[in-house]
C-alpha cells in the first residue's frame, strides 16, 4: 500500500544553526519526487526527519494521516514502514547479497522469505549474485542491492539519499530511470535527495527546489525551467544569465540585446528596473542583427557550440549556436533574442 506524505511547517536546528525553517510540502500516494538544492540546503535533514533519524523542533510529519513526528514525539524508525537508501549504500559487509535483502524480512517464514528475496533479485536483475558479498560486486550492483533491500519489507514510502552520487556519470542516468520504473511498477511512493538536476529530471514526477531550509518551488521539471517562481529557482535550474533591463511599456522590456514583447509579472510599471533571465537557447545567430556580441570562450557540444558572449556593456550571456559556423574567440557575432517564456524579476539591488 502506498501513502501520501505530509511535511508540515517542520523546523530542525543543530545547536544555534537552523537547518529547516517551517518547511512544508506534501507527496501524493504513488508519487515519485525529488528534493533538489545546493549542499547545506537541508535536503538530507528532511529525509532523515521523515525516516526518524532526526528529531524535529516543531511542525508535524504524517504518513497516510498517521503521525510520525512532532515536537516531543518521534515514532521509532523501525516502526515507521519507511525504507531508506543511503548515499554509501550501507550494505552489511558480513552478509551476502541474499542475506542483505532478507535482513528486513526475518519475521517471514523461510519459504516466504526466499520467494520474496528471489523476486526482488530478479526485479533488479541480480539473480546470479545472490551468494556474493558486498565487496565482491560493483558500485551499480551495490546500488541495486540497496534498493532491493529497502523494498523487501514493502515500505509505504522509499527515501533515497543521493543514491547515485557514488556511481559513474553514464551509469547514473540509466539507473535513475531504471529505479523509477521499478518503483512505478510497484506503485511505491518515493522521495529522492539529489543535487544533480539531470538526475532529478530523470527520476521525479515533481521536484522540490530547496534553499536555506525552505522549499522554493515544488513543481514538474518543465514548470521549474520555464516558470520559475523566483530568481533562485530560475538561476539554479538550467543554465542562463540575468541581464539588466527596463520596463518601457505595458508588456515591453528594453534590454541591451533588444526589445522584448511579453506578458510581465504583475506589479511592474514603466521605468522599473528588472533582471531578465536569458537561457542559452534564447539567443539565435543572426548575421543581419544589429546586436553584435564578442566571443569570450566556446566549447564544442557536437551539434552545437556553447558560446560565452560579452555585451558592449560587459554583461555576459551564454548562447547555443549550431556548429555549422565556427567563430573564434574575439570575433563579434550578430544575435537576436527569441524568447517564448520571458522570466523577469524586479531588480532589487
Amino acid at each position: 500500500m502506498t501513502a501520501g506524505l505530509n511535511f508540515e511547517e517542520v523546523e530542525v536546528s543543530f545547536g544555534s544553526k537552523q537547518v529547516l525553517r517551517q518547511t512544508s510540502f506534501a507527496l501524493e500516494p504513488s508519487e515519485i519526487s525529488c528534493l533538489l538544492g545546493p549542499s547545506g540546503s537541508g535536503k538530507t535533514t528532511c529525509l532523515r526527519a521523515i525516516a526518524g533519524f532526526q528529531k524535529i523542533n516543531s511542525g508535524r510529519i504524517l504518513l497516510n494521516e498517521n503521525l510520525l513526528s512532532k515536537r516531543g514525539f518521534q515514532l521509532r524508525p523501525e516502526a515507521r514502514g519507511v525504507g531508506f537508501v543511503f548515499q554509501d549504500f550501507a550494505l552489511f559487509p558480513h552478509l551476502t547479497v541474499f542475506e542483505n535483502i532478507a535482513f528486513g524480512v526475518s519475521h517471514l517464514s523461510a519459504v516466504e522469505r526466499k520467494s520474496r528475496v528471489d523476486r526482488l533479485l530478479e526485479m533488479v536483475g541480480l539473480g546470479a549474485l545472490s551468494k556474493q558479498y558486498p565487496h565482491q560486486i560493483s558500485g551499480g550492483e551495490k546500488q541495486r542491492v540497496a534498493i532491493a533491500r529497502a523494498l523487501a519489507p514493502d515500505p509505504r514510502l522509499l527515501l533515497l539519499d543521493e543514491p547515485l552520487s557514488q556511481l559513474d556519470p553514464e551509469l547514473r542516468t540509466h539507473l535513475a530511470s531504471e529505479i523509477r520504473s521499478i518503483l512505478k511498477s510497484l506503485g511505491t511512493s518515493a522521495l529522492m535527495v539529489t543535487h544533480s538536476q539531470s538526475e532529478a529530471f530523470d527520476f521525479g514526477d515533481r521536484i522540490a527546489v530547496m534553499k536555506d531550509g525552505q522549499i522554493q518551488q515544488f513543481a514538474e521539471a518543465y514548470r521549474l525551467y520555464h516558470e520559475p517562481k523566483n530568481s533562485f529557482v530560475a538561476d539554479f535550474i538550467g543554465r542562463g544569465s540575468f541581464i539588466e533591463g527596463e520596463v518601457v511599456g505595458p508588456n515591453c522590456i528594453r534590454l541591451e540585446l533588444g526589445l522584448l514583447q511579453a506578458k510581465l509579472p504583475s506589479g511592474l510599471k514603466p521605468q522599473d528596473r528588472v533582471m531578465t533571465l536569458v537561457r542559452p537557447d534564447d539567443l539565435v545567430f543572426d548575421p543581419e542583427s544589429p546586436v553584435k556580441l564578442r566571443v569570450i570562450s566556446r566549447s564544442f557540444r557536437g551539434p552545437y557550440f556553447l558560446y560565452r558572449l560579452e555585451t558592449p556593456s560587459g554583461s555576459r550571456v551564454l548562447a547555443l549556436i549550431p556548429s555549422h559556423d565556427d567563430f573564434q574567440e574575439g570575433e563579434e557575432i550578430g544575435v537576436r533574442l527569441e524568447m517564448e517564456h520571458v522570466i523577469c524579476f524586479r531588480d532589487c539591488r
Partner: protein
Amino acid sequence: MSSIVNALRALVLSLPSLVLCASILSLLLFAFRGTEDLWSHIYEFVLWRALWNTLVTSFLAIFFASLVGVILAWLVVFVDFPGRRFFSAVLALPLAFPAYVFAFIAIGSLDYSSQLMTWLRESWAVDGHALFQIRSRLGMSLVLAASFYPYVYLLAREAFRSQGASLFEASRSLGCRPFAGVWRLSLPLARPWILSGVALVLMESMADFGVASAFNIETLTVAVYRVWFSMFSLPHAAQLALIHLGIVLLFLGLLRKLTREHLRYEDRGAGAEAPWEFQISRPWTWLISTGVTCFWFVVFVLPVLQLILWSLPSIQGGLDARFLGWVRNAILMSAATAILVCFFAFLITYLQRIYRLKALFSFARFATVAYAFPGSVLALSLSLVLIFIFGSTGAMGQWVLLAMWMALGLRFFAVGFQPIYQGFRRLSMNLDEASQSLGVSGFRLFLRLHFPLIRPSVLAAFLFVMMDCLKEMPIHVMMRPFGWDTLAVRIFEFTREGEWERAALPALVIVMISFPIVLWLSLKLSGIRKAEDSR
C-alpha cells in the same frame, strides 16, 4: 661483484629467520636424545597435569578477557556515559602491568595471611579464604584475564568505532530494534578484530611463566623450567617445549582459520562518519559509569596503590647500588633488543620496497612467527643452539648474553616489524615515483621522503619492543648469565620467596616505564584510524 652483494644482502635479511630455524632444529635434535626411563616419569607425573593446567587457565583467561574486553569496548564506543572519553583511554592501562606483577599483588593482598583476609577474619569472622582461594586455576586465569583483556578491548574498540552510523540506521529502517543490531551487526562485524585480540590473549596466556610460578601451578612453561633446571634433562625439556609449541600453534592455527573466514568482508562499508549512539536513560548511564569506575579501580588503581605502598619502605631505606644495577641491566637489554628489532624490521621492509624481493621477503618475514613461541621455549632452544656450538654451558661465558639478546629480539620481532611494515605500506609507491620524477632518488630519497614519514612508526616499534622486553620474564630468568640480574629476574626471585614488599619496587619501575607507552598506544590507535578514514 653484484652476485656477492646479492648473497650478502640475502644473508643479512634472512638472519632472524635463520636463527629461528636453527633454534627449532636444535629443539628437534635434542628432543630425540632423551632416555626412556625419565620420559615415562615425566609422562606420568608432569605432562598431563601441566597440559591440563595450561589449557584450563588459558581458556578461562580467554573467556574472561573476551567478555570484559568486548563489553567495555562496546560501552565506550556506543554509550554516552559520564567519564566515557577518560575511560576510553585509560581502560587499556592494565597492559602496563606484567601479568606476574598482578599475580604477586593478588596473592599478597588476597591470600590467607594478607591484611585483607586477616581483617575479615578478625573483625567480621568471615573466612574469605574459604570462599575464594586466589592460588587456584580460577584465580590464575582471573589474573591473566585482568592483564590481557586490554588486547581484546583495544581491537574491539577500534572495530566498533569503524562501524559507521548508516549501517545501524539502515538496520532500523528495515525494522530491526537497536539492541538487536548489537547481535546482528556490531558483533559479527567486529568478529575478526575480536578474534585477533583473542589470539593475543591465547599466546600470552599459554606463554605465561611468571603467574604460574607465583601461583605455584605447574603449567607447561613451569614444567620446562623444572625439567631443565631441577632435573637437568635438556632432552626432556626439549620434548616438553615441542609439545607446548605444538599446542600453541595448533590453537593459533584454528583461530586464524576462523579469523580468515571472516576477513573476506574487510571492506567495512561506512567508516568516516561518527558511530551510532545508543540512547540510554540517565540513571543507567550513571550505573554504567559506576561499574566501569569500580572495575578500573580493581584492575589498575588499587594495584598501583598497593605497589607504591609496598615500595615505600625500600625507597625510604635508600636505593642500593644493586637495585640500580638491575634497572640498568633491564633497560640496557630492552633498549638493545628494541634497536636490534627495529634495525632488521626496517632493513627488511625497506629493501623489499626498493628491490621488490618476493621470496626473500617471505622468508625474512617468517621470523615474526617467533612471537607465538612461549619465552620459555625460545630460551631453551637458543640455549641449545649455544650448547651445540660450544659443547657445554660452562664454555659459553658472556656469549649467553648475546643469546639472550637474540632470544628477546626473536620473541618480539613481530611487535616491531608490524608497525614499521604497516608504516611503509601506508606510503603510496606514487610518492617514490613522484620524488624520482623531481630528481630526488637513492639515499636522498630515503633522507627526504622515507625517513621523515616512517619515523613515527619506528618510534612506535622501538617503544613497544622495549616495553615487552622489560615485562618478559622466562627469557630473563632462564638465560641470564650468573649474577647478571634484571628487574624481572629479581621479581621472580622475590616472588618465589613470598617477599612481595621487596618485589614491589622493581615492579613499580617496570609499570612506570610501560605506563606512558600504553597510554600513547591507546590514544594513537584512534589517531591512526582517523588518518585512514580521512584518506
